[in-house]
């Protein structure tokens, strides 16, 4: 794995940087993440929302228009969700692809409602994870996301969960929260938490559930 060219291209002084002390201060963290966003933009990592992803050759529902997630972000979540949700995802390949794609669409829809300030924070986080240099040095993920195994994705999540650096814990919480809410909160997966849904007698009695 270590012959990934991106690893070799990391300047040694940067790789040896005492990241822990640098990232400890939120100022350092903010400056660093700011730099990543600029760098990512310059190096061609697209920061444009993916819009409608063609149904041909993808797993996406072509009618859904992405308003925040970029094609890179979508690949990131395609790599993370199998580790994030684990055995909650269906095993049958087509059902599994649909479950992942639907969850990513709901993540996008959720983030759209977050508004500009938190979108900016998430853009920094996703750029940091998508940009090869920082993916390797900060996330310690050697392969690009489409080549990351579930085990490697899980190891990355564990590193950020158990890290002594608050910024990484915060990143872990952000990634897991948006994924968990979008997955477990969706009707198709309520059964995984034993939630039967709103009581049927109430649904039957309330006017807002009756078709006109």
């Amino acid at each position, binding site marked *: 794995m270590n012959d990934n060219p991106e690893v070799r291209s990391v300047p040694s002084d940067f790789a040896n940087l005492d990241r822990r002390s640098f990232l400890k201060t*939120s100022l350092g963290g903010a400056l660093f993440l700011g730099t990543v966003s600029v760098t990512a933009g310059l190096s061609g990592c697209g920061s444009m929302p993916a819009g409608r992803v063609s149904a041909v050759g993808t797993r996406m529902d072509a009618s859904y228009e992405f308003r925040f997630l970029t094609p890179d972000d979508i690949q990131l979540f395609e790599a993370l969700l199998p*580790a*994030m*949700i*684990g*055995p*909650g995802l269906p095993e049958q390949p087509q059902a599994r692809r649909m479950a992942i794609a639907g969850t990513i669409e*709901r993540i996008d*829809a*959720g*983030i*759209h*409602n*977050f*508004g*500009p*300030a*938190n979108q900016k*924070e998430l853009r920094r986080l996703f750029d940091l994870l998508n940009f090869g240099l920082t993916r390797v040095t900060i996330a310690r993920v050697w392969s690009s996301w489409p080549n990351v195994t579930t085990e490697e994705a*899980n190891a990355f*999540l564990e590193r950020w*969960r*158990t890290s002594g650096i*608050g910024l990484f*814990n*915060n990143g*872990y*919480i*952000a990634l*897991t*929260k*948006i*994924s*968990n*809410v*979008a*997955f*477990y*909160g*969706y*009707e198709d*997966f*309520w059964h*995984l*938490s*034993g*939630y039967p849904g*709103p*009581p049927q007698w*109430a*649904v039957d009695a*309330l*006017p*807002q*559930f009756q078709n006109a």
Partner: protein
Amino acid sequence: MQLKDRIAQGLESGWKVTDGATLTENRTLEADVVVIGTGAGGGTTAEILAKRGLSVILVEEGRLYYQKDFKMDELSAYASLYQEGMSRVTKDGAIAILQGRCVGGSTTVNWTSSFRTPDATLNYWAERFGLDALAPDAMAPWFDGREQRHNMEPWAVEPNVNNDILRQGCDQLGYSWQVIPRNVKGCWNLGYCGVGCPTNAKQGALLTTVPGALDNDAHLIHGLRADKLVMNQDRIDHLRASAMAADGITPSGVTVTLKARHFVAAASAIGTPGLLLRSGIPDPHNRIGKRSFIHPVNACVAEMPEKVEPFYGAPQSIYSDHFNFSGGVDGPVGYKLEVPPLHPAMSAGVIPGHGDTQINTMARLPWMNSVIALLRDGFHPESPGGTIGLRDDGSPYLDYPVTDYLWDGLRRAFHTMAEIQFAAGAKRVRLMHLDSDWYTTLADAKAAIDQLPMELHRVRLFTAHQMGGCGMGANPEESVVNGFGEHHHVGNLSVHDASIFPTSIGANPQLSVYALSARNSTRLANRLKA
């Protein structure tokens, strides 16, 4: 049964309600009073002023949602009814902020708990901030009046199992507990208060004071964001506001100018200080946005031997104040104990984890109980609260440092919550902490609580109660408004929301906001009618 919908009927009857998204060109409107915000404070203010014959314009940044929209679904409700789509956090991201953003404000999504401001809090305010006029006896008639207006009564139905576990645990340990008063009428005991009451039982601002104001000719403009109060010499001349597109998030580019004799800010303890800071309201002692309080919340979950079904039934009906004032009003921080409802999205977002661990935990949701502790911040020199500031785009943020004084309280609260859950028969208990396992004995849980790092991000922290930031007080050098919510320096500006509290309350704040707003609006009406 409250099946006839008050809002749908009102709209048909010709209420003056404007959706900001429908505006296509800039306009200027004028009224006696412009009220910014439609929650506990703004709704109360608008109804009282309108009933006195004053013309009122109500401004709401969120949109108008009512029974037709309340379908007991978490994902759509969090996206539309909460600030920042339920993603609002403090500046460093360490504390999740639950706050409403819709007509009715947080009262549309709260869990209906209705407490008077504790006597100890009011007495502390009198002594520390010169607010003698707010002593318990003086406030009692205002609490009485609002309890009637919002139908607040101790919940007469048996608590759901989730709440009963708190009661049983307290009983076992000899801790005091009480039944929570709720603002409901004909409640179906479903458990969906947090996503908009589907049955019109909840008597929040949406179904009481806002309709009361509209019946009396007030004009509600929703989907309209208050940008800036514009001064002319020593008075506010007008409010400049931006219409939002139908998504409720993007400004449409249409500007609305609202002129009035008097302006009431009731945009919440984050929104109001933000508005005043953006507006450059005179602040010679630099007090706006200071002393922000949040009742910092930590939580434990427990797996019980019998089914709990924590997603069903009145979400909050039992509380314990055993540890709230036990250390004295200004001693080591006290905490109120309650339980939260647990639906799948909320639970999956609050319980930190991923993969096998997460799905195994989520699979036990029907057997899960949770207890939360709400810390009474702001009563001690080492609990000075947070600060509201402005981002580059003018939007407000809350910077809330967690001091060692508060960490001590959070650790004690973890001990108490685990004790209660095991006393009630829990099979195992887990702290909402990144490093916490499930603990099968109280001894293991207590050992972990003593050892685990009490650090930002690792301890999962929440707030559903934002207070302070425009504190009231007799001394203008240390407060923003006087004891009637009147701004110390700008004659035609009042603040009628939780931002005027000089400390936290020590109880869920909606009744405190209703009562103070009713009192201060009655005085304001007398002033404006004179």
